């Protein structure tokens, strides 16, 4: 019934290969060379939700840190159902693209409670996916699972798969007495066991005798070769065992058995019959490890491929996208934006945001959505860029993950408008073409400057946007009933002398408004007035009715401490109650002074968008 609705795809026959569990490994093989041969990799994620309440969205007055806190909250909470990847190159006026759309589901493949115990869904997001004809059954039944890098190491320890040890470091220090005793004991035990094995293999014993011997020697079989487990108490002892084995026994292959809580529990020693047999075993173990890895890390292999290629990664709204990528495929998100940027840069050195590039081009400044950008480009510029998708996908394939192609196409367009020629684009090695360098790694969705947004190089880009220091912003809440910004402004105007100067009021959500004092110092006066004992007149009346106010720092605190209540008013109340002595906060918040915020005159928060 619902599959009929799939007619709504774009007119152009852009086909995206859909990938599930069944064709994953095959796709991986073809994707590998395509990534390494392309100039860029575009990515686009389809999530199960993004913000639970209106004020949880990144708002124009957010600083990079508060915007990051919001992105972090969403990334921890929601799930990625589709991950579109598209390696592409720009040649002359042609984009050569290889789009794939991976269906993901965080299935607990290894039965260890990972990658995700639970996740949230916003019904409106699921409903809009449904409108596009998304097949939830395919996603949930056959979606590819994954583990983040951090989870993988935990998982390896928990499943207890033996790890082949190849790196034997010879310790420089002379062994202590205890070590010497340990070494001797291991040596004699292994020797004894080995000779017993060789012995028994030549003799035809009775079954009972054989099993008895097995019992006494603690000998087992591993891949039809005899083996024995040597218990160890520390990583140091592991090293000692490996040293002993390397030094005295050529025909033995050691395997490390991980302990449940991390570390090593025992060293398994496997006896090989010959040099060839030893090589064979080593190869077997290597294959086994690779297979194991594939099973464990799942889709993350694609992330690792992109990362290893060091290609610039192109996305739209990079802060949100990469918060998700970091949280799901790398490690839990750090509390602080700087740490996030550092951590991400180690994996993806160049991240380009088409949203940011669009801000460089006049008519596109205010466009925030991909389709609008495409149509705007068509109207305003003549940029003949063709799309070439070499791989053949079946008819069914063309529906989802189109954004990634739009991103690729848009980037080629933008580069052309910004006079960045294909020759300049082609990056070599790990270095991004210098022409694009300036646009990379900018994560603040509302920043307009090309430099590091945190240091604040400022460029005002339209007449109706004014720069305001965060010190001039005051949040007010606790007014009665539903209020319009205009009504509130009128109410405030007569309430206190500070409002005789120029100020602006906007609603943030139904519960809370933000007041902008254009004249410096007035916000402080107002905050002092409202908390003092001798307020009078209308303001006093409003306060007695429950009006509260707080500066921008309180808002930052609410974001930092993760008070994500549905109403901003409740979060601010909670943040005010919280004592200020938090030392963690001091180390987090850099003494950068007030942040600069752009204040747009025309309705800064468009409630219709909600």
């Amino acid at each position, binding site marked *: 019934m619902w599959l009929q609705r799939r007619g709504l795809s774009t007119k152009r026959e852009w086909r995206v290969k859909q990938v599930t569990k069944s064709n994953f490994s095959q796709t991986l093989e073809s994707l590998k060379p395509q990534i390494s041969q392309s100039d860029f990799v575009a990515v686009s994620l389809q999530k199960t*939700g993004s913000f639970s309440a209106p004020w949880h969205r990144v708002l124009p007055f957010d600083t990079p840190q508060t915007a990051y806190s919001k992105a972090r909250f969403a990334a921890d909470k929601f799930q990625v159902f589709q991950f579109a990847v598209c390696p592409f190159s720009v040649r002359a006026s042609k984009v050569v693209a290889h789009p794939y759309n991976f269906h993901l589901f965080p299935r607990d493949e290894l039965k260890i409670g990972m990658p995700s115990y639970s996740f949230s869904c916003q019904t409106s997001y699921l409903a809009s996916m449904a409108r596009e004809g998304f097949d939830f059954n395919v996603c949930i039944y056959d979606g590819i699972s994954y583990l983040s890098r951090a989870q993988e190491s935990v998982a390896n320890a928990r499943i207890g798969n033996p790890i082949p040890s190849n790196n034997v470091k010879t310790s420089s220090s002379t062994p202590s007495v205890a070590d010497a005793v340990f070494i001797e004991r291991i040596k004699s035990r292994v020797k004894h066991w080995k000779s017993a094995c060789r012995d028994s293999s030549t003799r035809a014993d009775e079954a009972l005798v054989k099993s008895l011997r097995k019992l006494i020697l603690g000998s087992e079989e591993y891949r039809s070769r005899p083996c024995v487990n040597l218990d160890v108490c520390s990583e140091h002892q592991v090293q000692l065992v490996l040293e002993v084995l390397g030094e005295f026994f050529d025909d033995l292959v050691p395997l490390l058995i991980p302990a449940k809580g991390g570390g090593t529990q025992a060293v398994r020693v496997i006896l090989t019959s010959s040099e060839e047999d030893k090589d064979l075993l080593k190869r077997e173990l290597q294959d086994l490890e690779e297979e194991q890895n594939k099973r464990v890390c799942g889709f993350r292999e694609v992330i690792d491929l992109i990362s290893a290629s060091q290609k610039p990664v192109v996305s739209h709204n990079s802060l949100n996208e990469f918060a998700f990528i970091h949280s799901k495929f790398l490690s839990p998100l750090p509390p602080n934006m700087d740490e996030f940027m550092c951590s991400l840069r180690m994996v993806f050195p160049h991240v380009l945001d088409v949203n940011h590039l669009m801000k460089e081009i006049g008519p596109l400044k205010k466009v925030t959505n991909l389709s609008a950008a495409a149509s705007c480009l068509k109207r305003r510029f003549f940029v003949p860029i063709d799309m070439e998708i070499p791989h053949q996908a079946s008819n069914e394939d063309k529906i989802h993950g189109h954004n990634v192609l739009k991103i690729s196409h848009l980037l080629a367009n933008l580069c052309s408008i910004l006079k960045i020629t294909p020759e300049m684009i082609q990056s070599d090695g790990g270095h991004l073409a210098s022409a694009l360098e300036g646009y990379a790694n900018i994560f603040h969705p509302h920043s307009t400057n090309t430099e590091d947004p945190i240091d604040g190089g400022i460029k005002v880009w339209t007449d109706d946007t004014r720069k305001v220091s965060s010190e001039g912003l005051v949040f007010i809440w606790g007014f009665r009933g539903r209020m319009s910004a205009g009504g509130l402004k009128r109410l405030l105007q007569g309430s206190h002398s500070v409002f005789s100067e120029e100020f602006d009021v906007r609603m943030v959500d139904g519960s809370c408004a933000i007041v902008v004092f254009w004249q410096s110092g007035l916000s402080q006066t107002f905050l002092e007035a409202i908390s003092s004992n001798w307020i009078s007149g209308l303001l006093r009346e409003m306060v007695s009715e429950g009006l509260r106010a707080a500066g921008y720092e309180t808002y930052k605190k609410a974001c930092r401490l993760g008070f994500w209540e549905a109403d901003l008013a409740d979060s601010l109340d909670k943040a005010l109650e919280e004592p200020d002595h938090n030392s963690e906060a001091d180390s987090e918040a850099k003494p950068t002074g007030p942040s600069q915020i752009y204040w747009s005159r025309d309705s800064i928060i468009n409630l219709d968008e909600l």
Partner: protein
Amino acid sequence: MKQWPLLRSLSESLTRTLAAHSAYTLRFLSSATASPTFALKNVTKSNFESSLADLRRHVRDADFVAIDLEMTGVTSAPWRESFEFDRFDVQYLKVKDSAEKFAVVQFGVCPFRWDSSRHCFVAHPHNFYVFPRQELPVDGPSYEFLCQTTSIDFLAKYQFDFNACIYEGISYLSREQENEMLRCLNSECDDEMSLLWRNMKEVRDTPLVSVADVLFSERMKNRFNEWRKELLQDRKGGSQFLETSNDMKQQFQTIFFKMRPALILNGFTAHQLRLIQLVIKKHFKDLVYIRSSGDGSYSELIVYIDSDNDKNLLMKEVKDGLRREAEMKIKTAVGFRHVIDLLSSEQKLIVGHNCLLDIAHIYNKFFGPLPLTAEDFVSSIHKYFPYMIDTKILLNTNNVLKHLMKNGSTSLSKAFASLCPQIASSSKNSGLAFQPWVEVEVQVDDMRSSNWNSGAKHEAGYDAFMTGCVFAQACSNLGIDFKKHSSSANLAHNKNLQKHVNHLYFSWVNGDIIDLGTGNRIAATTVCYNLKRRYPKILFSNIVIVWGFPSQLSSKKIRECISKAFGPISVTTIYHLDETAVFVQFSKPELVADFLVLKETLETIQDPISVLHPLSVLLEGGNTCAASYETYKEICSSPISKVMFADQAKAVGIKWKTKLIESKEKVKTQEDESFSKENGATDAASDPADKSKTRKIEDVIDNLSDDRISGSEIIDSLYAAQTKLSKHIRTTNL
């Protein structure tokens, strides 16, 4: 009842020989060939209205209605799972958390009616796909629900159709949500009108600037004048239709709006409409500009009015129309809740299998937010559903049935297989032919079958059907004669069921049962004697919760180090909530306070002795926190759910490391004090004692910091300190 086996064997033989053509044979014929494979009644958005009408009839006629729910998850964190260490109030908090966070995706309803003419039950299994889609725009938080990955995977394993659920699922509003929306509507209606007037005022204020606007306005004015003139002439001239030029017909169409002549304005821009509004306002006293809605879209109208009075009347009519329409929308949005309202209003006996969580979901989704306490929940649910039966309780507490089940597993599918083998295996040749099997005929739309079995386990509709079958068979085994019970209430009052009606498992793990009728709890031990207890008797006042300790500490090691500090038999049980937290149950309640005080003391005094203390193993890393059982309850009541308990405690905002239970004692002693003051008696204040006890233990440790004393002496004297301490606490407790 005795006739049943006879009848069946008769009909079986008939089927085999294919000789006769009685009604029975026909039924068996059809079932023996192809019929058992038809699907149960799947209900989605598209067939909801019609199915609801049928269901109303079936429920009205039913003797009882079996229900079952499928959810997107059960627990939002491992430490929120059901433990034996859950006190009654904690159990409720866990159920509440689950019902609040997860969504219901499938709702099985299966009315059962006793057909006295054919001596069998007729069941109508319905499988409703439910999805909490937001149908009406409201500001505020978005609709959101949690999915537990393993639960979703489990549903997938049983071929749950997620597409049907998300695309076609029936949405709903709870009673509370509906009321809230109607409340909003009331205020909005006033708003809209005032908005309308304000708009008009603003329109008047703006002067026409551009020439184009002036020209357009002039043209419109002429058009309206013409129309009006024609209209008036028309009135004089009798019943002649209006003649309008062709070009006008496209943009202006004459209709009757609420019994008044009117023009529909088509194909104008918002700006042009504003200008028209202005023209009307300025130049025509007997025309009004109106925005009316119908069929989901708005249209702009110019309406002719006779007088100011008529105008007011019209505005009121328009307003009422808008309001009615909005109310209709809300009514449609109620959606699946109509089914729940039906079940509640018909007051039928509701049958579920281990259904407390189901009931909590029903309450939360269709009535309103769950009450804060179990007591309030129980009393209000009883108001909505006066008769409820839990088959799991029936099978576990009734001796006759327990014998039948051979004390085996009482999971729904096991119970169904052992109590209703003739339905479960769709075979008539059961070895236990002398058992009086209850016949259940299934009817879906026009299809009927007496040995229907879709076998789709964990599909809500089928699970409800199994539950109903189990209940019917159980009743028969209890000697209930269905012929005598014509109504549902009658069945609920049967003396053989009396002991079980309105009893629900509050927690299956502990076997705690609650009586919804009286609100009384029925002690687990008296009822659940076949449940093997893995732990000695649980005393919540003897429990401390410890979290944030070094991760490699096993229960054994924790027991060891506490035993070293408090004596070999001090610890009764160690129970891991997850890898970051344990419950420690002490043998004596005093030890709880002692433990917390000792922990606090060891942490505040940072000297070599406290490092040597046996308890320091537990405190290593400096993140170990401990508190009494009350804190666990507090943390459970938080809406936050972090996967690890230690993270949860942090997220809830716990900043202390040890929560002494002194504060509670203080409250107690304060109460005592005030009490004794009232009595005029003087009481030695116990506060100094409190202070002195901490001082004493510090003294001991100070004394101990002498290096000459051996380790064992240290421990011994610590013991001494503790015994003193516990004496203190005991005295203050008195």
